[in-house]
């Protein structure tokens, strides 16, 4: 099977010719809207810059990714983008790419291999995202007392750990802000809603809650419904800050039901291509980690407009 794929890929490479730059992109899959948007934006970026993009969907399997990279190497692409599904087990295949002198750029996730095996890694700083959210809440409440409930991501996952830590960094030193309840909502709307329901039950029907911090927008959207059904006004009675900046949260912000979100940009390809162009031109080695911007959006930042801009990206 692999052999057929390789042969087919080689043929394809021959027919394309050598005129434009060819970039291979091994994507994890399409498990979330964010990832779909990342794929869409990578395609857009490649098209704008006139590259030929060889796209391979690994469907959450490392062996598919390894096979794809081998095939890219066999085709002799000019660069490889890799969004690794797991952190370990990449040494051999990255070594093969290095020996073929093909630069590899990691997107949004890191690997445990030696950093001379890849050109650079583009990603957001998860701790920083949490910190931006925390700092926003700290400035929003000023010196008023605020009891915060937290919807955590999947227990043990690095976004959940880092976003929890960053938020605490952001509110450090503000004795008036206290995180009173933390529970995992598994990054899903369903659990975001049902966990929020139990928070409301446990905190006098929600009267004692001043703000909600959700590790992603989907949980916040679920929680907003729970708050509405409990007869409270999300965004006013309970302030809501979350992370990711998916289109639906902008709709909620436009309706005044959410207050702020921190963007995890799906445009990882832009900075990656910038670094690659510099490298192709004169061999400039970029730094080993390129941090994307963690931009804060509030109700003042034209949420309806942001929604329109994002809704077709595949979120």
């Amino acid at each position, binding site marked *: 099977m692999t052999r057929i794929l390789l042969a087919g890929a080689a043929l394809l490479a021959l027919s394309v010719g050598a005129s434009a730059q060819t970039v291979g992109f091994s994507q994890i899959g*399409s*498990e*979330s*809207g964010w990832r*779909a948007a990342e794929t869409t934006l990578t395609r857009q970026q490649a098209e704008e810059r006139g590259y030929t993009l060889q796209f391979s969907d690994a469907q959450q399997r490392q062996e598919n990714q390894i096979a794809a990279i081998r095939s890219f190497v066999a085709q002799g692409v000019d660069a490889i983008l890799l969004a690794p599904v797991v952190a370990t087990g990449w040494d051999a295949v990255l070594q093969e790419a290095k020996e073929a002198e093909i630069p590899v750029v990691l997107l949004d996730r890191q690997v445990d291999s030696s950093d001379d095996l890849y050109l650079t890694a583009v990603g957001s700083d998860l701790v920083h995202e949490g910190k931006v959210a925390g700092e926003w809440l700290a400035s929003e409440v000023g010196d008023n007392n605020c009891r915060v409930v937290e919807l*955590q991501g999947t*227990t*043990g996952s690095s976004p959940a750990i880092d976003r929890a830590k960053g938020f605490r960094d952001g509110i450090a030193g503000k004795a008036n802000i206290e995180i009173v*309840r*933390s*529970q*995992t909502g*598994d*990054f*899903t*709307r*369903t659990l975001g*809603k*049902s*966990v929020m*329901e*139990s*928070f409301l*039950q*446990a905190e006098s*029907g929600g009267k004692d809650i001043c703000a909600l911090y959700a590790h992603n927008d*989907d949980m916040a*959207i*679920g929680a907003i*419904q729970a708050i509405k*059904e*409990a*007869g409270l006004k999300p965004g006013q009675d309970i302030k809501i800050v979350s992370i990711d900046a998916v289109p*639906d949260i902008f*709709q909620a912000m436009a309706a005044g039901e959410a207050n702020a979100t921190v963007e995890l940009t799906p445009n990882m390809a832009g900075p990656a291509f910038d670094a690659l162009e510099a490298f192709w031109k004169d061999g400039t080695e970029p730094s080993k980690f390129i941090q994307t911007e963690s931009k804060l959006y509030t109700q003042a930042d034209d949420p309806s407009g942001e929604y329109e801009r994002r809704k077709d990206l*595949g*979120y």
Partner: protein
Amino acid sequence: MGQTLKRIAPQLVTLTLVVALVTVIFPNFLAVSFDGTRFVGPAVDVLKRSAPVALLGVGMTLVIATRGIDLSVGTIMAISGAVAAWAITSGMGLPASVALAIGAGLMAGLWNGCLVAIVGIQPIVATLILMTSGRGIAQLITEGRILTFSDANLAFIGSGSLLGVPFPTVLWIATAVIVALLMRRTALGMLIEATGINRAASALAGVNATVLLIAVYMASGFCASLAGIVATADIRGADANNAGLWLELDAILAVVIGGNSLLGGRFSIAGTMIGALIIQTINTGIMLSGFPSEYNLVIKAVLVLVILVLQSPNLAADWLFVKSLVKARRAKVRSETP
């Protein structure tokens, strides 16, 4: 009725104990108030939140009674939810959307049933096919994103109330009662049990085991589609990736806690329903307790283990043995006392 009560007595005792335990940790657990339109309180939440697992459990009980298993119910939830959300956003209206979603569930059940009853694939493998591939179908419908809708009628199924009772609660109790009556007031229950215990003998006795098996998997698909509609209506959006994820395992657990054998045969829908309530009471109890998330699974696992050990027939037999010994000794003491 008396027989049913006797059959599910261990489950009722377990539920009481779990509720008591949660009440100790969270004293207001059983407090229910009426806020003008509906009842609110943690116990009401349990009744509402157990809807998906209870609905899946109704179908799963029947499938397991035939010595099968349906791993695809979580995925069927995702498909039906996606169909419902897609139909309502395409402007089809509530009846058509619900009908299409249920139709999708029935089709999925028909597929499973044919693989099991006609092609002869083992149920665990046959339903695994849909379990793994079905989410892809759901993603195709939602185009990989969370398909959000704002139709109030559909949302009512997830978060509305009838006479103050959450609609999902009404739905799962009604489904369980109707299916249980259908099983016991007709001969279906016995024919399903006979097929599950000995398909060959049942077929020789003229039981149409093939049709019965397909019907049972379709019933499971039907129940899963109801659960999928509830889940989608609840969050006003179809999340193809996460809707019903791993719920097939909770449904199987509910069947087992309900005292049904995974080897098929005798079954009790009432038992499974209490099993679902036990699971949801534990889930809600954990959330209310305020323990850090890291302990969730451990607490749940320990409680489930304790419940299953307490309910195991061996232990029950040992207990009867101890009881008979005590009785014998008492009798002896009494007879020796002048």
